[in-house]
């Protein structure tokens, strides 16, 4: 795609996003608001999981830390009023999620593949348990965040724009990472970490940077998500299904691609929230079955489906051999 055309499309998407709430019901705005949030977490997950190939099964830990940190920041330094008042707590949420990632990065990133994935699953469980059971964190009784929505604006619209902006931020960062030296180093790590290291790529440093960047973005999102809830307890932010969604959205759309996680999120949320909204109790089953189906039928995700569908692969194999 030529550059002017891409810019034109981006501008059109931005205008459409800005104008869309005028035409939609509050329910649909809320669905889109959640879509922006979920897609943005998946884009952030993809920086570590997709580019570097380190699949975290517990990334919701950053959502939880972000939300908890924002609320505690407010408790300690006072909650600001209005939209400007949420800026500092949200930044604190992102920073603390990033710091936490920095602390656990060194030991955990020495693990590879399955071991890293499950260790992160454990991190998610343990931090949630600590947040819930240690009185200092107040996860058991719950935490409040004051509404930052300006007077006269519907809350769903405010969060719609907030999450849309964050999704744009995540996409820009993910794009910048992908085309930089940093991004190429991550790809080298994904393809063959030992060789990359041997060739002089500072794998350790790049992995930690990707982990911290990814966690910081998810932390920011988690803090804003905390605001959108207003009141939350441990299970409302440390949610296993959030961890899973990040993986699933990236996987279904195309792991390691820029827009894959967004496409995956759009497809899956449309399916579960709109088409199957009457079957709330089987959402988990549908998500699980879809994951299995995607892995078995098109392991590269939708964006790469052309090359990986079983019959195409067979044709290719016959052609080449």
């Amino acid at each position, binding site marked *: 795609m030529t550059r002017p055309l891409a810019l034109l499309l981006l501008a059109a998407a931005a205008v459409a996003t800005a104008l869309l709430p005028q035409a939609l019901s509050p329910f649909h705005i809320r669905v889109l608001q959640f879509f922006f949030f979920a897609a943005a977490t998946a884009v952030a997950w993809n920086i570590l999981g997709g580019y570097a190939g380190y699949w975290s099964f517990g990334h919701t830990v950053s959502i939880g830390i972000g939300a908890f940190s924002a609320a505690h920041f407010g408790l300690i330094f006072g909650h600001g009023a209005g939209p400007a008042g949420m800026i500092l707590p949200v930044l604190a949420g992102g920073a603390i999620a990033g710091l936490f990632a920095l602390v656990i990065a060194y030991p955990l990133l020495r693990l590879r593949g399955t071991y890293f994935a*499950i260790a992160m699953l454990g991190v998610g469980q343990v931090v949630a348990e600590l947040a819930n059971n240690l009185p200092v964190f107040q996860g058991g009784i719950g935490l409040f965040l004051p509404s930052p929505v300006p007077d006269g604006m519907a809350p769903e619209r405010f969060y719609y724009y907030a999450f849309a902006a964050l999704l744009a931020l995540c996409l820009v960062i993910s794009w910048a990472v992908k085309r930089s030296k940093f991004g190429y180093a991550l790809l080298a790590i994904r393809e063959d970490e030992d060789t990359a290291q041997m060739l002089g790529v500072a794998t350790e440093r790049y992995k930690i940077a990707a982990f911290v960047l990814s966690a910081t973005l998810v932390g920011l999102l988690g803090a804003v998500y905390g605001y959108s809830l207003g009141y939350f307890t441990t299970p409302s932010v440390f949610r296993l299904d959030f961890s899973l969604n990040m993986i699933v959205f990236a996987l279904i759309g195309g792991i390691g691609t820029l827009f894959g996680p967004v496409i995956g999120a759009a497809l899956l949320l449309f399916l579960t929230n709109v088409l199957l909204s009457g079957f709330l109790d089987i959402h988990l089953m549908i998500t699980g079955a879809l*994951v299995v189906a995607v892995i078995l039928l098109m392991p590269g995700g939708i964006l790469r489906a052309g090359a990986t569908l079983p019959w195409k692969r067979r044709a290719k194999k016959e052609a080449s051999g």
Partner: protein
Amino acid sequence: MLLFLQTTINGLVLGGIYSLAAVGFSLIFGVIGIVNLTHGIFVIAGAYMAMALFAAAGVDPLLAIPLIGAVLFAVGYAYQRTIIDWAISRASVEASLVVTFGMAMVFRNLLQLWFGPDVQTITPSYSFDSVAIGPIRVDMVRLAALGASMALLTGLTLMLARTHFGRAMRAVAQQPLAASLSGLNVRRIHGLTFGVSAALAGASGAIIGIVQPFSASSEVAWTLNAFIVVVLGGIGSPAGALAGGLVLGLINAYTATYVSPALTQAMMFLVLVLMLLLRPQGILGAAYGESR
């Protein structure tokens, strides 16, 4: 001193149950080389089956173990021969991790639809009896649970060491190619390994049902426990699972008594990370380590 002894006994009893719950996971990890995130589901499914049998026909959970084991053996075999085998042959071993995660969600949802989301317990007639050894008391259920766990672990060890099937399983674990060249049907052995693993998980579930409360969502905890046990003890052997399970049980009991019951998971996880960093092959080492 008495408290310490009592805590130690509790930890060892708990550890025996952890060992049984993890040994199947360890077997699949060792023989087929995949991490089965559906493992906790088999454990919880065993517990629910024991509960249903106890409620419907008054069958004691420990006596229901053969039936539960047989049913889950069939489920595990069918599961490996279809979904797991497809995932490994079409995608990759990492993809099989995600596939088992997805299947765990499907099964968890099914269990929730079937049995409801509430926390359940099974209370057989001997629930409130206990045995006194000097001043130390052990609950009857825990003692029965430990006895059943040890019997099953011994059975598995003997099967692996003495029977034709056990030898075939070890051969496939060490060198799949050489095993198939010697006339073993590797795919069938993989399926049977999954069956044995699911049956053992189900048996441990029946035992867990009488000792601890459970619900469909506790499957994650049992999968994680199994993983920790395997990392602690070493992959692939019943002895490794036993060592890992006992250590985990002791850590759990000491933390609950001397630190805080709220920190048991955190402590178990801390030990896991330390172990992965300091001795990644586990206390006893991987049973089939040379080949992988």
